[in-house]
């Protein structure tokens, strides 16, 4: 158990830089991730936080090998998956599940909720006893059984995200990537989805990489946090340590920029120049 589920060393991901693409020919490659080192411990939720363009989503996509790294290594559950071809990744996919930001676009509009949740079960050889398995998945996320025959447009945003969670957890995966899964939701719905995920993570002992721009949400849900900026790790530590005693100026700036729901007349005043 001491061995981490993910062990990442010197991870680089390069993608074509379309802003510098010549009219004819290929775009030059640009490093989106600039050599990351970290571990994801088993059975706990790790927060990955950063502003837009920090590379947090690219990192998530590399972990589940939707992207192939250009350098470095990703060891998942004791196995180097850095450059595994898709055919060899396939049997591992059931343990590398995803919950997406926008459940509207990640659920097929022409399939019933039953068939959406059943699809990954079928693909992974768990096609027997589908009814019972889907029923269990629905029950797990607190949706009534009658939802099995509905379509995504008949569901509210929060219900859709529950379906997304049910689908990802139906296979009891070793790892779940959750990329901004509550950022499109109202606060009341957001609280429901987070408490659900929090409960399921504890019950099922899930290892989750929870990508978010919202440090308040991260503090509640995650045991450790990785702060990213411009494709690099700014700071990584246990959650309470990070919030109570942030080591980096950038982390402190991020925290100070969050508008907490309390009156603070000084918040909008120009910052006094910090002596650094």
């Amino acid at each position: 158990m001491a061995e981490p589920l993910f062990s990442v060393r010197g991870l680089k991901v390069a993608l074509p830089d379309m802003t510098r693409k010549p009219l004819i020919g290929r775009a030059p490659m640009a490093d989106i991730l600039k050599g990351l080192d970290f571990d994801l411990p088993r059975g706990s939720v790790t927060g990955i936080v950063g502003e837009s363009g920090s590379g947090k989503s690219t990192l998530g996509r590399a972990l589940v090998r939707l992207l192939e790294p250009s350098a470095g290594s990703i060891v998942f559950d004791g196995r180097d998956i850095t450059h595994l071809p898709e055919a060899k990744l396939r049997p591992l996919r059931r343990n590398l599940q995803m919950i997406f930001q926008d459940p509207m676009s990640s659920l097929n509009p022409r399939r019933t909720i039953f068939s959406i949740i059943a699809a990954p079960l079928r693909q992974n050889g768990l096609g027997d006893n589908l009814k019972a398995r889907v029923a269990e998945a629905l029950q797990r996320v607190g949706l009534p059984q009658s939802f099995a025959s509905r379509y995504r447009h008949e569901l509210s945003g929060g219900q859709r995200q529950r379906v997304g969670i049910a689908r990802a957890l139906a296979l009891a995966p070793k790892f779940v990537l959750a990329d901004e899964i509550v950022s499109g939701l109202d606060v009341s719905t957001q609280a429901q989805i987070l408490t659900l995920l929090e409960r399921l993570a504890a019950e099922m002992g899930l290892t989750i990489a929870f990508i978010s721009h919202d440090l308040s949400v991260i503090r509640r849900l995650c045991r450790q946090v990785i702060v990213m900026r411009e494709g690099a790790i700014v700071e990584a530590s246990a959650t309470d340590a990070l919030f109570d005693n942030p080591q980096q100026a950038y982390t402190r700036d991020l925290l100070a920029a969050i508008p907490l729901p309390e009156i603070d007349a000084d918040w909008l005043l120009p910052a006094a120049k910090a002596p650094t």
Partner: protein
Amino acid sequence: MSAVVKPCLDIRSLSAVLPNGQRVLRSVSLSVQPGEVRALVGESGAGKTMIGKAVLGVLPTSVRIVEGDMLLEGEDLGRLQPKARRTLIGARTALIPQDPLTALNPSRRIGPQMTDRLVRILGWSGQRAETRIRQLLDEVQIRDPDRVTKSYPHELSGGMRQRVLIAAAFAAEPRLIVADEPTTALDVTVQKQILRLIAQLQREHGTAILFVTHDLGVVAKISQKVSVLYAGKVVEEAETADLFAAPQHPYTRALMAATPRYTDPFASLKPVDEAVLAGLAAEIAAADQAWRRPHG
């Protein structure tokens, strides 16, 4: 003293319906005093953007106002001829939109897009408009106005685009600005800069702002008054400081408890109690029934 000050915007018992007869605004009353920021806060579907659109006269054609008055600096918008109404709204109000990329024309340079409104709607000379725009770009701390006015929207960052639209909104010295989720699409550090900028310009120009947001954190920082909306109904109205000190309506309390706070992770992010939602549904139903009786 405050009794004799004419509100900049006064909305009285405004109701609007969809073609199927469903009310989307439920007897909304609120006012914005000159130079004051009033926040409209609520979740999606609460009707907060709808109120902003009603004020600006840009409601979708499917939404029909069936009752109520809107007074802009004492002028009853409902009594004006459409052309006079548009002229008045154009001269005295402005909008800071949520998404600067869709609000700007992607195929035109920033400069002419900013001066257009001044020249076409307010009849300023091109030169006067250009001078004014430069002045405002300076006020929103854009250091190289030449480059920015010659840029196309996609060449600027999200924060820069929002600065441009803030400058454009304040340029004609409107009495009232409707700010519709102006920082929702921005990163937190940029959001803080933009909120600070809006607050500063608002103070300096003495502009009233109707500030639409879903974020109670933003409400706390930017506004002096606040109206909490649910399903097109104002469920609570208060001075912002009072609302945070002692929220009265169960829904307001539930919203506050649901809003994440990193300083207090386990006292926040509380799901809204079913009883609160049931209470709201009953409140809305009762209000609709009382409203339908005299309105057939």
